[in-house]
């Protein structure tokens, strides 16, 4: 029935009132003439019929000999006809607003930001004259903005502002800071970057002052770049060499013999905000989600025409409630899980080319549910690192007394 009503609305229909002596005869003639009567109802001296708009336009051909009145014209066709002017004005206003709104910047997006301080970058962008709601025509040139952004931020190698529709995209490239490499002419020592038991030292240049099987602490000099002679004179060189040492890495943690996982309850809450030409209008009073445990996601829906953002959009923040479920697991599984986690942590602090030589896991039961796991790993690592000699005592080399490395 509902579908039929929709069909009638789309085609358009007319409700007519027929009065007079010949109303039945007129109705018969309509039917014989191919007019489809959709509904009909009678009163004492009146018949009301519903016919399609298309049939109504052929009505003159039937020449009624009774009084026929239009009671109602309904449907899409009549609605468009009735509202044609209003519709036209609305369209014009919409197009004007659309054209006007597309002349402004309604959103600023940043691409390539990983380690850069966002506040500083936004401040630099503001200084470059880029703001929400500004006219696109007032945007400075790309070179000008690039210079301002680079001068007001650290760690950015390149920046450029692209205007895509009503969105300004600030694209940046961050500096990759290379490890400090000293000039071969700069005097430096080789020092231990971490504590360990020295296993081998290969001196390329400088004076080795540590021995094998010696324990060193971070910062201890292993190969010195300073040569001193008995007469208190000497000179300094850029020391170099390979120092391999056995290092010990210990990590421990307390673990429960339970496996925790999230179980979603199916309850969701949505917080909707309307973004209107740079304004953020929340459609809620309280920001509080009021779930004890939940995962939140935020999705933006932008109004776009031909890929151009029109400055209007909505942001939906969805909170999915979950409860934390716990399942008991065996002692072995807990230790296995803990071991993997602790090994992962240790692997983050290893130096390049580290070789594992020994691994040990110690466990200690704290209570029936808790276990303390300690992982001890021994590696051979190259712990030698260059350290600039700050105070140069004597720069002039003495050619007659050249000292070579040990």
């Amino acid at each position, binding site marked *: 029935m509902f579908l039929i009503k929709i069909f009638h609305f789309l085609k358009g229909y007319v409700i007519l009132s027929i009065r007079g002596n010949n109303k*039945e005869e007129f*109705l018969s003639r309509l039917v014989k003439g191919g007019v489809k*009567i959709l509904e009909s109802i009678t009163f004492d001296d009146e018949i009301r019929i519903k016919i399609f708009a298309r049939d109504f336009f052929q009505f003159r051909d039937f020449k009624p000999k009774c009084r026929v009145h239009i009671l109602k014209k309904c449907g899409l066709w009549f609605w468009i006809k009735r509202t044609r002017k209003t519709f036209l004005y609305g369209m014009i206003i919409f197009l004007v607003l659309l054209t006007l709104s597309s002349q402004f910047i309604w959103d600023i997006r940043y691409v390539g930001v990983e380690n850069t301080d966002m506040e500083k970058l936004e401040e630099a962008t503001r200084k470059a004259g880029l703001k929400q709601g500004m006219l696109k025509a007032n945007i400075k040139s790309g070179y000008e903005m690039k210079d301002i952004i680079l001068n007001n931020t650290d760690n950015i190698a390149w920046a450029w502002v692209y205007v895509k529709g009503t969105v300004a995209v600030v694209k940046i490239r961050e500096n990759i800071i290379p490890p400090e490499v000293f000039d071969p002419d700069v005097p430096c020592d080789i020092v231990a970057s971490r504590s360990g038991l020295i296993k081998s030292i290969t001196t390329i240049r400088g004076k080795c002052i540590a021995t094998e099987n010696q324990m060193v602490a971070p910062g201890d000099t292993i190969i010195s770049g300073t040569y001193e002679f008995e007469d208190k004179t000497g000179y300094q060189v850029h020391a170099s060499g390979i120092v391999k040492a056995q290092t010990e890495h210990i990590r421990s943690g307390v673990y429960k013999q339970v496996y925790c996982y999230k179980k979603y309850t199916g309850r969701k809450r949505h917080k909707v905000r309307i973004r209107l030409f740079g304004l953020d209008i929340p459609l809620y009073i309280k920001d509080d989600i009021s779930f004890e445990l939940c995962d939140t996601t935020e999705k933006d829906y932008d109004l776009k025409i031909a890929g151009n953002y029109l400055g209007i959009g909505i942001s939906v923040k969805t909170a999915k409630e979950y409860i934390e479920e716990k399942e008991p697991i065996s002692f072995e599984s807990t230790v296995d899980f803990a071991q993997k986690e602790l090994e992962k942590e240790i692997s983050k602090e290893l130096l390049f080319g580290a070789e594992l030589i020994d691994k040990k896991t110690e466990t200690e039961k704290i209570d029936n549910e808790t276990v303390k796991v300690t992982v001890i790993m021994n590696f051979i690592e190259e712990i030698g690192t260059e350290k600039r000699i700050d105070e140069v005592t004597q720069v002039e080399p003495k050619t007659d007394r050249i000292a070579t490395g040990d």
Partner: protein
Amino acid sequence: MDIAKKISEMLEIPPEAMLNIPKITMVGKERVLVENYTALLDYKKDNIRLKYEGGVIEILGRNFEIRVIGEENIAVSGEITSVKLF
């Protein structure tokens, strides 16, 4: 007419299809379907009169409403008390 009637009887063709005589179908007291009518003569809340080839059908009752009306058939709903053929 008689020849047509005889042919329809002989060939076992339904007479309403060949002779244009009305076929009246009633569904309880609520609905009546008349096929092969030629004109609507009267349409009132308590009385509907239809013309067919050779006479008039009068449907009496209360709260009549034409549900479907086509060139050859008409369905009426309401509280039907009697159907008369003249």
